[in-house]
């Protein structure tokens, strides 16, 4: 439903904008933490300048782990009288709409300020091990592998510096905002998760992207 809404919005924007440049962008240097864990992401996007001072864009973002790790191991924690250690693997996919105003106003290049809004579909697979050293007790029924899917809606402000979309272009940016829905999403996660593995209420984005415009 959300993807369809975003697609309709994109089609509307494309059909409304006539005289402007287009570009595609890609990077592996999009840093964004949905949880407190490593935050490098793939980013593949589309840029469009509908006016001489503004730009819009739509990005597809997917989590990567450049160093080959498939999961993170948690620190020991206490829950229900047990010591819990767990492995957590994340899968993140999302779309993000960007809207930009160029402060310098010179042919859609230079410093800009803008907003972003989108969604992230986050799947967390948690595989716990529990220990009880004081008594012999059965393994509790919550201590089993679970996969939780959550949806959050990042919204915030962006600042950056972009070159003109004339063939090769580049964009370096910083963004900060909130992840709407993170509170309710955290309620569905296994209760023994440490804070580092919970979805963050605030997030930042930092990145450097290369693109090709026409």
């Amino acid at each position: 439903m959300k993807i369809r809404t975003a697609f309709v919005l994109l089609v509307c924007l494309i059909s409304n904008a006539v005289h402007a440049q287009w570009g595609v962008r890609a990077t592996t240097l999009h840093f964004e933490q949905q949880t407190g864990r490593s935050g490098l992401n793939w980013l593949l996007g589309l840029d469009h300048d509908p006016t001489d001072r503004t730009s819009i864009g739509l990005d597809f973002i997917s989590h990567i782990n450049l160093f080959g790790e498939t999961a993170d191991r948690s620190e020991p924690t206490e829950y229900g009288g047990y010591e819990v250690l767990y492995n957590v693997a994340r899968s993140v996919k999302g779309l993000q709409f960007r809207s930009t105003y160029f402060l310098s106003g010179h042919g859609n290049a230079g410093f800009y300020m803008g907003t972003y809004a989108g969604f992230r579909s986050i799947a967390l697979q948690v595989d716990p091990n529990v220990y009880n050293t004081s008594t012999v007790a059965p393994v509790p029924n919550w201590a089993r592998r679970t996969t939780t899917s959550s949806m959050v809606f990042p919204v915030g402000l962006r600042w950056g510096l972009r070159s003109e979309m004339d063939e090769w272009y580049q964009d370096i940016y910083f963004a900060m905002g909130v992840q709407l829905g993170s509170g309710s999403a955290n309620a569905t996660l296994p209760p023994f998760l440490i804070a580092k593995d919970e979805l963050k209420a605030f997030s930042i984005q930092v990145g450097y992207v290369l693109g090709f415009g026409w």
Partner: protein
Amino acid sequence: MTATKRLHLFSALACLGLFASCASILNGGKQTMTLDSQPSGSTVYVNGTEYGTTPLNYSYTPVDGDEVLFELRNQGYQSASVTMRPKRNGAVLFADAMLLHIPYLVDRNSPALYSLPTKQYTVNMYREQTAEMVRYMLPITGVESAILRGSKVGTFQGAPIKLDKESPFRELEQPDMLASAVATGLRGSWLEARVTRMGTSKGDESVQKAKIHLKPKLRSLRATLTGERSHCYGPVEVELEWRFYSSLRMDSVLFSIPQTTTYHASGERASDVIGSAMAHSARLLPEESGLAERMSEHYGSGLALSKGGEVSMAKPTPIPFASRKEMISALVKAVVTVQTEKGHGSGFIVSNDGYIISNEHVVGKEAVVRIKMQQGFTLDAQVLKTNKDFDLALLKVQATDLPALAIGDDKGLLLGEEIFAIGTPLDANLGQSVSRGILSGHRELDGRSYLQTDVSINPGNSGGPLIDENGKVVGVATMKISGEGLEGLGFGVPISVALQMLNIVFTP
């Protein structure tokens, strides 16, 4: 529907309304302007479609495109066109961007998103020129300014403009720039203005030839500008005194015309406004009533001054010839070859005691030239006077009883009447060559009269006589226009003009 859902629906509608009206709120209705012309009453066409008559209120709609072309037409005036580029307001675009471009989607076709560069625009209209106007060369030898450094010359966005180094009007301290602006304004009019530097040989020659030169004096300036330095608008009142000087008596003002004009800046850079205002004033100058008559009068006086002192000579005894068949053979005796260090030309004897008329460009600056007679002998001739304006020279040889040509009536010549040219074309050995043609027209070029003929005039023919069917001299062969595809375009100075401009008086 639950209360929560109703609240959500109401909030969504309120947000949509806010977004939709965002552009209107921020832009404040700047998409309309008053369009006027000077003078008013011009018909306005917007992108080729008739819109109304000035003054009128124009409201921009995005249907009119990214660039709106206004064309103004008024009877008796040259049509004027102005292109205006409405821009989207920066604050509106910022709000659009911050609100994820949703207002842009809603109101991109709304006029409220756009703003015109000015609320009031006046187009300067200029009169059409009549084709039959006599054209005058008019050297501009400078522009004087009575505006002192540091004085206030108007306001820009309400702040005073003072004439100093940082002023957008610093061009006022550059007379060359102002003179160029005046020349630009006069371009295409019947006053062929050109910036000329006095004190150089070329400049002095040009001023002498024109007889009159222009040196306007800028008396005052009052600008009320708005906008930005890169695009400014508003009226600029210029008070000028157009001073016309005599080229022969350098310090004397022949006449002056006071003029106050209002130029309406139309989005140019502030530093260009003063030049545009000067050019505007200059464009209106040829429309001043009575100017053409005064130019003609003073130009004529200037020409008259160049003819020098009076030269009296006895009326020549005509060369006798029995029939028309013998006429030319008899007349060639009075035609001579004028030899100088640089080359040769032709001339003809107008008195039995040795006065010869030729061209100024034949004798140049030489005081004494060699005259080769048809009979074969050579004499030294003194150059008595020249008239550069009419390309005439009067020579004198010390001899008596020379054959001389009778003076004819050039004014009575009819189109198509036969004309003979006698001269020494190309080589001095081709002396007294005869060619025949007809009178093609009586012409007026640069305020001077000419006889146009298709008779062959070649290099060396210059200064030779043009002779009518009765064997009388009617003109002095002077020039020919040559070029690819051109033939038979020769010109001669009428003999009456030649006598007048050399100030020759015949005594009985």
